[in-house]
């Protein structure tokens, strides 16, 4: 009785599982036939919102459809998901084979690409996305190419972000200091020395992200001008004249950086809770507890910070821009494997990069209802509406297609777009643009190394532990977790890429 019961149960289980999973895997077959019939093709367009899903979502969807049905015979359904839920839910949608035709990747492009959760759009991009290619430009396209194939396209925005420092202008003025003289960490320290004496209750530096003071080890902070972190800091390129992958954490430059952070921490310049606080830098500045922060950004970071903190802020870049693969692939638009009609999706993506009305609708909503135009061309909330009462305020005016097409919000420097576009054109480009590391072969080591990294790097970065003791420990643990294997694999992949791309 027991045996037959078990057998029946197993058989039923196996049958059910088989049926389920084969039903889902069939979702990966794409049809490239697009029928230009009278009924519009329906696609689901998903993107995250900062905050709750806006109440007026349907209105926006209707307005967008007025355009898309007319232009490309495609009906768009908006699938908006709060950013906190975004990764979990978009992932499940793809795993579950649900209808999802076009979505952004936020920092996980190469991971989704190597797991084949996105489809190869090289061909369909050529056929139906020529205008995207023009808007994005060759370099940016290279940045999202994996092994010769394109799985996603970068959004068009300022990509030449660099490590910069933000400081409160009013305090600088108080002590007759200027941020313009700042070029190196030593210069920054000079300013801290003066300010900290006068402002006892204020931390000189606060973390822009939890557990991270320097946010990035790019160029200006470790003293290497053309630094490419090759996606994850596990094996990096120092300089742009060679293709040798080295371990960042064993370098002298890294040692110097953490020593500096340590001395700053001991001098009291760094917020004591830097490793654990979840207070945002702007709220800390607002409360009068912070003087400055490092940030990895383009122009405009100062006006954003000023708006949110209520104090005047100035910004200084600490190195010349270098456009790397990770900078470009940080935000891309892609078509997941669950899409049944990539042609329709691509046609819509094309509109995202060319049609100003669509970008404005998605960014800001409907003119008159969610925003009004000022005399100088900028836009602002209508009277009586603010960020919490507006029916459509997703906060994503950095995400959609070609952002240079969009309106500028009141208070933004009107020259911003010009500067960003110029920076994009004039910034140096990393020699290894287009190289994306596939970690599948070393996934065991990768998981171990990630844990070691998260254990030691934040504390060293905030200067809360003594590098003389902890840094060697960090390095040896990385080695035993297999970082050398990762670096060797990366080098091997880079060599192959170099041969294929440098002719």
């Amino acid at each position, binding site marked *: 009785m027991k045996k037959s019961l078990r057998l029946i149960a197993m058989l039923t289980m196996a049958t059910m599982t088989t049926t389920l999973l084969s039903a889902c895997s069939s979702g990966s077959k794409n049809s490239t036939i697009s029928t230009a019939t009278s009924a519009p093709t329906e696609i689901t367009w998903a993107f995250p919102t900062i905050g709750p899903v806006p109440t007026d979502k349907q209105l926006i969807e209707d307005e967008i459809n007025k355009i898309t049905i007319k232009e490309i015979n495609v009906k768009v359904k908006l699938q908006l998901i709060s950013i*906190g839920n975004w990764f979990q839910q978009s992932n499940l949608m793809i*795993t579950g084979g649900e209808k999802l035709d076009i979505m952004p990747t936020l920092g996980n492009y190469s991971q989704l690409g190597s797991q084949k959760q996105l489809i190869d759009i090289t061909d369909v991009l050529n056929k139906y996305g020529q205008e995207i290619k023009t808007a994005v430009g060759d370099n940016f396209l290279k940045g999202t190419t994996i092994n010769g194939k394109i799985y996603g396209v970068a959004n068009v925005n300022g990509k030449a972000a660099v490590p910069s420092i933000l400081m409160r202008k009013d305090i600088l003025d108080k002590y007759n200091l200027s941020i313009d003289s700042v070029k190196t960490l030593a210069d920054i320290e000079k300013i801290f020395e003066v300010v900290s004496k006068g402002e006892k209750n204020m931390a000189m530096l606060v973390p*822009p992200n939890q557990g991270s003071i320097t946010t990035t080890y790019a160029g200006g902070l470790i003293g290497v001008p053309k630094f490419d972190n090759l996606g994850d800091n596990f094996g990096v390129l120092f300089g742009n004249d060679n293709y040798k992958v080295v371990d960042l954490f064993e370098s002298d430059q890294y040692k110097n950086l953490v020593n500096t952070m340590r001395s700053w921490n001991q001098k009291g310049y760094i917020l004591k809770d830097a490793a654990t606080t979840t207070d945002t830098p702007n709220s800390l500045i607002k409360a009068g507890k912070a003087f400055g922060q490092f940030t990895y950004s383009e122009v405009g970071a100062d006006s954003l910070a000023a708006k949110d903190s209520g104090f005047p802020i100035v910004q200084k870049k600490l190195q010349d821009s270098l456009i790397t693969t990770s900078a470009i692939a940080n935000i891309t638009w892609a078509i997941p494997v669950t899409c049944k009609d990539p042609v329709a999706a691509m046609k819509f993506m094309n509109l995202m990069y060319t049609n100003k009305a669509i970008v404005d609708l998605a960014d800001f909503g409907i003119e008159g209802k969610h925003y009004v135009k000022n005399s100088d061309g900028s836009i602002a909330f209508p009277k009586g509406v603010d960020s919490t009462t507006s029916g459509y305020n997703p906060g994503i005016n950095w995400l959609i297609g070609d952002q240079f097409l969009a309106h500028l919000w009141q208070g933004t420097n009107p020259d911003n777009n010009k500067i960003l576009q110029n920076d994009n054109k004039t910034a140096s480009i990393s020699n290894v643009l287009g190289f994306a590391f596939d970690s599948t072969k070393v996934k065991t080591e990768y998981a171990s190394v990630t844990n070691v990294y998260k254990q030691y790097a934040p504390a060293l970065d905030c200067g809360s532990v003594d590098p003389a003791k902890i840094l060697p420990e960090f390095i040896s643990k990385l080695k035993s977790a297999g970082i050398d294997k990762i670096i060797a694999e990366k080098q091997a992949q880079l060599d192959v890429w170099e041969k294929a791309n440098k002719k």
Partner: protein
Amino acid sequence: MKGIKKSDFKYQACLNIILMLFALASILPFLLLVIASFTDENTLIQSGYTFFPAKFSINAYKYLIYQGPMIFRAYGITFLVTIVGTSLNLILTAMIAYPLSRKDFSKRKLFSFIVFFTMLFNGGLVPSYLMWTQFFHIKNTIFALIFPNLLMNAFGVILMQNYFSHNIPHELIEAAEIDGSGEFKTFFKVVLPLSLPILATVGLMSAISYWNDWTNGLYYLTDQSLFSLQNVLNRILTDLQFLSSSTVSTQVHMDMPSTGIRMAIAVVGVVPILALYPFFQKYFVKGITLGAVKG
């Protein structure tokens, strides 16, 4: 009667002191939370957490009131789901636990194992997700908050089974049988009425699980209008966690909820169930009354 009044008094006084310490240990941290939710944001950041803040403010709650309609709706959904889910849970659990407690049931050990085994092995999120969405189509329905995982669990079954087998004397069941009562009648008329404490316990456990659950909503609901209270509150918190850890955040500016608001969120999530709990406690009163008869 036995026992001198004085030693009784000392005994009770000891009990009271010790239990009061435990109660304070539970209440004071929560009190700190409530006070922080009423503290002015800048003061909170500048001077830290304290029971006596320098400056009060209700800004945190103002922010939540803006989200008011959404929060009220979420309250409604949570109550509905908790009540329906807990009721179904009690029925399913009691009905499966009863045979397992009957020593004269021949397959008792086999099915006990079948039930218990589910606590040991877990297929993981992906297979469960595929099944519930592809096969049962519960995605974006209210059932998504009721069915997965919480409708019955082995832990409750085992607790109840334990209680039935040790606290319901078999003679009672036999007696009912001899009187000609069928199994169902025996169960409802004899067993259940004697099992109020365990029904209340498992019911409470289930209610708390439903009330606190946020994963079902996260996995199976993209339609915000079906979010439970914890989903709404959690979403606010995870939005914040994302912004404080991502490189994308440098380009985002929004009026994001701050420390005080997080505290307010916690208070909002707890207050209703806390207010209602004393009413459900009357099932335990019976036992506590009995305890009072002693000594």
